């Protein structure tokens, strides 16, 4: 060090004397930046590919370029029609999902706990889960008409079995050792269920609920395509009839974005609220 060292540098020298290269960012921050970078790169790649295919392969009618989609988007957003359709679809997803999850969860806990109930109902669950919500549309329309109830029923169908199956698995996979440990500490059967099995099943239940959330979005669109006068599926259907490919792409992109955001909200809120139960020891 020369005598002309400024006071600031001297202070730095004192606080971190052993580090030759000072890191301005912690490893965690650098990891986050890296991930954001890759997400950006991924979308950039997709957009470039989209442009190329749109202009040089299919032509802008079959696949409108991002700019055309954006041009279609703004009037739809400003008029409020897009927001209304999103709201309708989301409300159907929300109601069907909440009811489906609640039924799947409660039934799953009982089936995981009571062996007779499990053996009696499991064959039904294992066979009917191959009926996708789309397969159920015709009969659901006959049963419930084309009103809201039919949409809730279809979303319910798309969510209930996923939550059910994962909840049963979670209860059944509670480590035997953990149950035995609680037994010799004096736990009753009811306490084993409430204090051991239920918390041990939480990671499975959360996975089931997350899969069911995606399934709820997948279920609602076909239902709205076939029988609805609002919602994102209805928007797709109307745009298709009028050959408005740009509006179709707006709806498709909106489904991606809304689904992704909902999933992220679910993921982060469960990760934070249920952190202890999800931690793999």
């Amino acid at each position, binding site marked *: 060090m020369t005598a002309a060292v400024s006071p600031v540098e001297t202070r730095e020298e004192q606080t971190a004397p052993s580090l030759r290269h000072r890191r301005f960012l912690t490893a965690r921050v650098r990891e986050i930046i890296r991930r954001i970078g890759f997400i950006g790169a991924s979308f950039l790649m997709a957009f470039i590919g989209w442009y190329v295919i749109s202009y040089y392969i299919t032509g802008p009618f079959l696949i409108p370029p991002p700019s055309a989609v954006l041009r279609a988007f703004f009037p739809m957003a400003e008029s409020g029609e897009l927001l209304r359709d999103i709201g309708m679809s989301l409300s159907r997803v929300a109601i069907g999902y909440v009811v489906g999850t609640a039924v799947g969860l409660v039934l799953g806990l009982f089936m995981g706990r009571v062996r007779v109930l499990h053996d009696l109902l499991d064959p039904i669950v294992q066979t009917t889960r191959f009926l996708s919500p789309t397969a159920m549309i015709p009969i659901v329309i006959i049963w419930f008409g084309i009103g809201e109830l039919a949409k809730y029923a279809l979303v319910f169908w798309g969510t209930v079995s996923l939550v059910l199956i994962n909840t049963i698995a979670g209860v059944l996979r509670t480590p035997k*050792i953990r149950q*035995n440990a609680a037994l*010799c*500490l*004096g736990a009753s059967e009811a306490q084993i269920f409430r*204090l*051991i099995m239920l*918390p041990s099943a*939480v990671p499975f239940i959360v996975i089931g609920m997350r899969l069911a959330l995606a399934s709820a979005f997948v279920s609602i669109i076909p239902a709205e395509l076939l029988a609805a006068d609002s919602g994102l599926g209805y928007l797709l259907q109307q745009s298709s009839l009028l050959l408005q490919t740009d509006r179709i792409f707006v709806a498709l992109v909106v489904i991606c974005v809304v689904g992704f955001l909902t999933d992220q909200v679910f993921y982060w809120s469960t990760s934070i609220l249920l952190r202890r139960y999800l*931690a793999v020891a």
Partner: protein
Amino acid sequence: MDMRTDAPASEVSGRAAPRRWGGPVFSLKGLLKVFGHDKPYVALKDVDLTIENGEFLCLLGASGCGKSTLLNLLAGFEKPTGGELLYHSKPITGPGRERVMFFQDANAALLPWQTVQQNVEFGLRLQGLLHNSQWRRRAEECLELVGLTEHRHKVPSEISGGMRQRLQIARALAVEPDVLLMDEPFAALDAITRRRMHEALLDVWQREKRTVVFVTHDIMEALTLADRIAMMSVGPGSRIAHLIKIDQPRPRNPGDPELGRLFAHLEHLLHGVSPKESMQ
């Protein structure tokens, strides 16, 4: 040995009062355990064993010889197929907190969603004793006994494997058990941690004077810990082949020539009890 066997069942879960029962803690006579119906497997046959109050007994044997089965029978997780299985002169009908089992897999045995302290208090919570200040103090004592007081707000995934095993000890002691049943508890730990766990366990055992039944396949571990070693023959149809009393004072040094002699003797016995021989 004073053979008074007058411990009433209610005292089995009796509290802080020091245990002064006469007679053995466990007595097993002609114990038989068969698994399965269609293709029965005789795991244990003619097991005779008496475990005295306050004793540190090691069940030693090769893998698959039925040590864990025997321990599960003592805990009440399994029911005997035949013979006599008594705890303080009464047949064992199921698990109870006077006989607490300690598992090798601490991750599975502990509650990963609860803090160290909550794990220790878990047994008290089950009994509805958590709000009794006397019991709470007991739980805190147990944490201190195993040296985990400063980690009490962490969850099990945040502490080391050795600490988790100490946490299991604390959790077991908090409900004031009469007997600690330990199923190869330290087999998954590294040698240094294992050595420390042996010291910690002996320290706790000497202070608390519980009966310990400790399953291991490691001769040196048995020699370091036990008052008596019950060596099991190789299955099927295992029994207690040898009972060896270890009188060496503790702490025992692995370099002690007397232990070396015992080691050689035990190793000879372990090999001597080959399947062929025991079939005869």
